[in-house]
């Protein structure tokens, strides 16, 4: 692949005696919607943590936008435009919905303690613009009416949306979503599919980990499959569905290959 936005090479991560991620390599194409799937314990979240700088890999490299970010700290990775969300919702519970999103603007803005107290004109303008931008993002995900509510009062589905909104405010070049559909009902995950496509149309590449096969098959253009920490398959949804190694990973050893139906998983 020419000029991938993300190139992961031979990433390996061990926890004591367990090899959680074992020489995983793949590329993510610019402006694509790519999914990483695999049975529980396959190492998907560990991989995400390694890519985004939360738990550096033991071996291997991560190249983002032609820059080596393998050992880069999480906040610096985010400053470069790689934003991740978390598997369990991690909202700033006591802050308002609007303020949660405004935190997302951090990497796009400047000004620390001194500026906060002195408040020169450019700072005040930045704060004003920030509110507008945050509102625009909330509108995009459909939470504009809740902007003043305390984040902890939202429904679970709304909280997941808020987390995505917050990440979007950071204007990511690459958005890593860790199980964005977890716990969502059918309507909510349909809306999520629409949102993911909208995000991609806005110029952001989306890489997500997911268990919801329905969502994956509908929305992903490229899928990578992990099992026991190893990369075992890649391809389009159709290719992956028919791949015997994938079937074996999910269903165990079976004597005849069976077409993978979304409902079976």
């Amino acid at each position, binding site marked *: 692949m020419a000029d991938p936005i993300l190139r992961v090479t031979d990433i390996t991560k061990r926890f004591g005696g367990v090899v959680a991620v074992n020489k995983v390599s793949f590329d993510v194409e610019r402006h694509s919607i790519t999914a990483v799937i695999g049975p*529980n*314990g396959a190492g*998907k*979240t560990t991989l995400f943590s390694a890519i*985004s700088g*939360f738990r550096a890999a033991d071996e291997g490299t991560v190249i983002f936008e032609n820059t080596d970010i393998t050992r880069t*700290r*999480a*906040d*610096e990775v*985010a*400053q470069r435009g790689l*934003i*991740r*969300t*978390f*598997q*369990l919702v*991690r*909202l*700033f*519970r*006591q*802050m*308002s919905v609007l*303020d949660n999103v*405004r*935190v*997302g*603007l*951090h*990497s796009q*803005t*400047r*000004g*620390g*303690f001194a*500026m*906060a*107290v002195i*408040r020169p004109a450019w*700072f005040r303008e*930045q*704060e004003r613009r*920030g509110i507008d931008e945050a509102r625009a993002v909330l509108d995009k995900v459909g939470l504009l009416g809740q902007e*003043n*509510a*305390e984040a902890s009062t939202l429904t679970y589905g709304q909280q997941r949306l808020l987390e995505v909104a*917050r*990440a979007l405010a*950071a204007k990511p070049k690459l958005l890593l979503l*860790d199980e964005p559909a977890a716990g969502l009902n059918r309507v909510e995950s349909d809306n999520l599919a629409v949102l993911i496509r909208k995000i991609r149309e806005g110029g952001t590449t989306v890489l997500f980990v997911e268990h919801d096969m329905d969502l994956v098959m509908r929305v992903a253009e490229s899928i990578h499959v992990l099992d026991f920490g190893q990369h075992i398959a890649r391809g389009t949804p159709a290719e992956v569905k028919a791949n015997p190694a994938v079937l074996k990973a999910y269903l165990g050893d079976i004597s005849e290959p069976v077409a993978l139906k979304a409902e079976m998983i």
Partner: protein
Amino acid sequence: MADSESSATPSLALPPRIARGSRSMRIVVISMAVIIAALPFVASTYVLSLLVLASIYAVLAIGLDLFMGQTGQVSFGHNAFAALGGYATAILTTAHNWPPLAALAFSIVISVIAALIVGVRTLQLRGHYLAMATLALGMIAYTLAVQLTSLTNGFAGITGIAPLGIGPLELTSDLQYYYVVWIIVALGIWSSFRIKDSRVGRALGAIAGNEEAASALGINAARLKLIAFTISAAYAAVAGALMAHFIGFLSPEVFGLDLVTLLFAMLFVGGIGTIYGPVIGAVLIALLPAILGPLADYRQLAYGVILLAVIMFAPSGAFRLIADLAERLFDRSSEGEKHG
């Protein structure tokens, strides 16, 4: 597969946002300002001196609230910075005849340096580890104040500390200290609100809410925690220096663990994270000996009981209660505006 949350972070539960700019809040704040301005005219000399002490504690409390309330961290050792500021001022003005403002500046600088050195490693700790590490630092500072008698005179203390002033203009009366320190407190409150309602304040709130999520959005949590810690240390140093000038005498007892208990009582009685709350807490706690009257000897016991009572029955603190009450009385607005 469960995402491992940092389980060892007993971060403080920040109080829900209080609507600012609402009519009830404006009334509350203006009332408080009027009361503070008018109190010296009705208070006895004893109460006035307690109120000056209250204002000095308020300075400490505002700084600590930035670190513990806004940033959601914990420090059991801020008595160390107060001691550092107090003793630096005392030693420089008595033994070396420095002008008070120069000594004050030096006290702040030395506290800031100490905070940076200490904070760089210590702030990587979280939860009770951070609590105990800061406790250790605070206790070491206290013990050093007691033991390094060649410098500090130990329990005998340093006497004859000159009043605070610029050249011939000195603060000599309680009343003068009262207004000067309360103006400092007001400036502190003003700065804290400016910080809270800004990009960096939201970043601090994010760190308090969930440090990893904050990092995932590009916030350098380590750096911001260190800066907040340093700023709070500077406030503590100022408070220590003011204490030295006001009382004219300095000894280690005032900087022991009792001060830590006192500070927590102030922060929680008032309402941690609310900025006004710790100031109110400082006043209430400082006035306690006056309220106790003949039972003033029991004040330490009272601090403990009050802290426990607040934790059990009013964990959001007095300011929250006042704000809610004012809201009910003065805001004729609908339910929807409650979380402004």
